[in-house]
Each structure stands twice: as C-alpha cells, then as structure tokens.
C-alpha cells in the first residue's frame, strides 16, 4: 500500500521577486533571516 503524491518544482518566491525587480525592495522591508545582517558584518560594504 504505497501512495504517491506528485510534486512540482517551481521558481521560488525569491526568484520570482528577483525576476520582477522586487527583491531588493522586499528585503528592505523584511528580514527573512539573519543572513544579510550577519554577512554584512563579515563582508562590510566595499569588500572585494
């Protein structure tokens, strides 16, 4: 008795926002996780 559920792969929310040019604006208003802030400390502005 096995029950299969097909899964679909679609573009992620991040990809859609980026493609629509909305990602930057979105991330200004939201902090989805601590990555940006953490990395901002590790890679200050101007880091090559």
């Amino acid at each position: 008795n096995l029950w299969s559920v097909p899964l679909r792969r679609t573009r992620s929310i991040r990809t859609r926002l980026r493609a629509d040019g909305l990602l930057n604006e979105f991330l200004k208003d939201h902090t989805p996780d601590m990555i940006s802030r953490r990395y901002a400390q590790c890679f200050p502005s101007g880091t090559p």
Partner: protein
Amino acid sequence: SLRLGRISERIYNFMDAQFYGEISLGTPEQNFSVIFDTGSADLWVPSSYCVSEACANHRCFKAFKSTSFIHDGRRFGIHYGSGHLLGTMARDTLKIGGLTIPNQEFGESVYEPSEAFLSAKFDGVLGLAYQSLAEILGSPVFDNMIEQKIVDQPVFSFYLSRCIHAKLTISPTGELLLGGTNEALYIGPIKWHPVTAKGYWQIRMDSVAVQGVSLFCPVGCEAIVDTGTSLIAGPTSDIVRLQQLIGATPSHFGEFVVDCARLSSLPQVTFVLNGTEYTLTSEQYIRKERLGKNEICFSGFQAVDIISSKEPLWILGDVFLTEYYSIFDKEHDQVGLARA
C-alpha cells in the same frame, strides 16, 4: 521559544521553497497546493475569511461548504522569518495522494501579512516533522495517518528532481511516497541514520570536507533533513568560510554568487554522516538561474544560526535532497539516504 525546558527554533522561511503538491480538504473536496515540509509539523491553508491581499491570489478554504467540517475555535499563530500568520484551528477530512484522513487538525489562516505570499505558488504548508515542533495542538498529518492505521508502514520518502535542463517553470519533478519507498527512484543501498532529537528529522553529522579536507564540524555536529529549505545551511562562521573557499561573493541581497565560467574548477563538498560520505560537485551545489539574458550562478549554501541544546545545526535542504533520495522512518526514528 522555550518549551518544557528545551530550546527549539522552528524554521519558517519559504522564500526558497520550490517543491509543492496537491491535497484536498473537506467534503466535497477543496483542493490546495502545499509545500510538504519536513522542517515543520503543522498543516495550514488560507481561509475564505482571510483579509490579506496574499489570500486573494490563492485558493481559500470555505468551511461553510464542507459537510465534514468541525469548528475548533482556538487561535493559532505561526511566526516565520519574513512575517507571520494568524488564524483559527479546525478539523476536517484531508486527502493526500488517494489517502483519506478523517478528522485532521489544521489551521485556517485569516491574516497573511507578508508580501512573500503574494508571489508564492503554493497555498499552504503541510508539515511532516515530529509533533514536538507543532504549533497547532493535535496530531500532525503523518502521526494521524499512523494512529488511524492508514499506512501499513510509518514511512514516507522524497524524490526531488534537479532538472537543470528544464526551463523556468518545470513539470512534475518529484514524488512524496507515503507508506514506503520507490525503488525505481534510487540507486544502491540505503544508508540509515538514527534521529538524534525528535523535533526536526535531526541526524548526526561527522564532518564537512572541502575537496577531501575536513574543515567544518570536525568533532561532529548535528544536521536536519529539511524539504522545506531550498539550500544547504550551516552556522554563519562556517558558511562564510565555505563561501570564500568556493570563491562566492555576496550580492546586494545577501545572496552569494560565483562566476559561472569557473564552475568546473570549484571544489567538491562532502558531508560525512555516520561514516558515510555524501559528496556534492559544484554542478550540484551551485544553482543556475536566468535573470533576463544573463545566467547567474548562486551558491547553494546559506548561513542560518539555529540555537540548539547541542552543537550548531546544519540544514540539508533541497540542494542536497535532489541528489539523495530520502526516507523518513517514524517506526525506527531514522532517516535513510540513497543516491537519487
């Protein structure tokens, strides 16, 4: 949050989630697309009473049209990285892949303030983690299936296809199998890894090596197998160094990109789980995306600091799980992995 003296952190960041499937709720059936998420334990869909703009873009549950609906009335709230959900709890008949689960608790969201959901292709989330992670009181879906003896074996498996040659929106590219494994979708023996903490599907990791050299988690750490996370995540200090080792540089958005021309020269990254090596090549851990006329190569690694009672946690998300078929065994509390 602090529960029963144990610190846990739930992951609710669906910014990168990519795989979803269909379920139905109610009598007659109302269909929804949901992320099948091993990193959470709740089921929620939008309510027809939802007042948020995001709900207008999604299918909403109409309780008044279901003859099997049972009102609960308790409120629920799920906080995730980029916003939060508010709603009420209910019970109704759930159908997944031909299986019928009567009396399933779920959340009807009435408030989804995050703009993220405007762009989401899925309506809700179906959590497959252990009950201790559940925000909503009651049995998570798979626990309910086991209790009601709906599946013979308390096992479910994921096959997630990478399909890098397909175009932007991709046709059916994965399978959640309830009740066992699909031998046609994996190669070689299954290696089993005991669950070390029953919240997430959390297993022991021995080390992470770059081009054969063990650099991270050298004395062992923990990893969770999470279909609701797209990338591979680890502690910030480790991931920053790993990005440097693969030559990834940060974009304005905090994402890391590599020069696509250098892909073949990037090192392999190996995750050692219970003595078994799981190696990803650069083609496997780099995600290529087309932005206008340009192809951008994003690093498949991201920093997420999860506080746990033991060592820092790593998250093996879809980037890992597209390469390895994963089996979640609730009877023996173990995760099986085999080459997809």
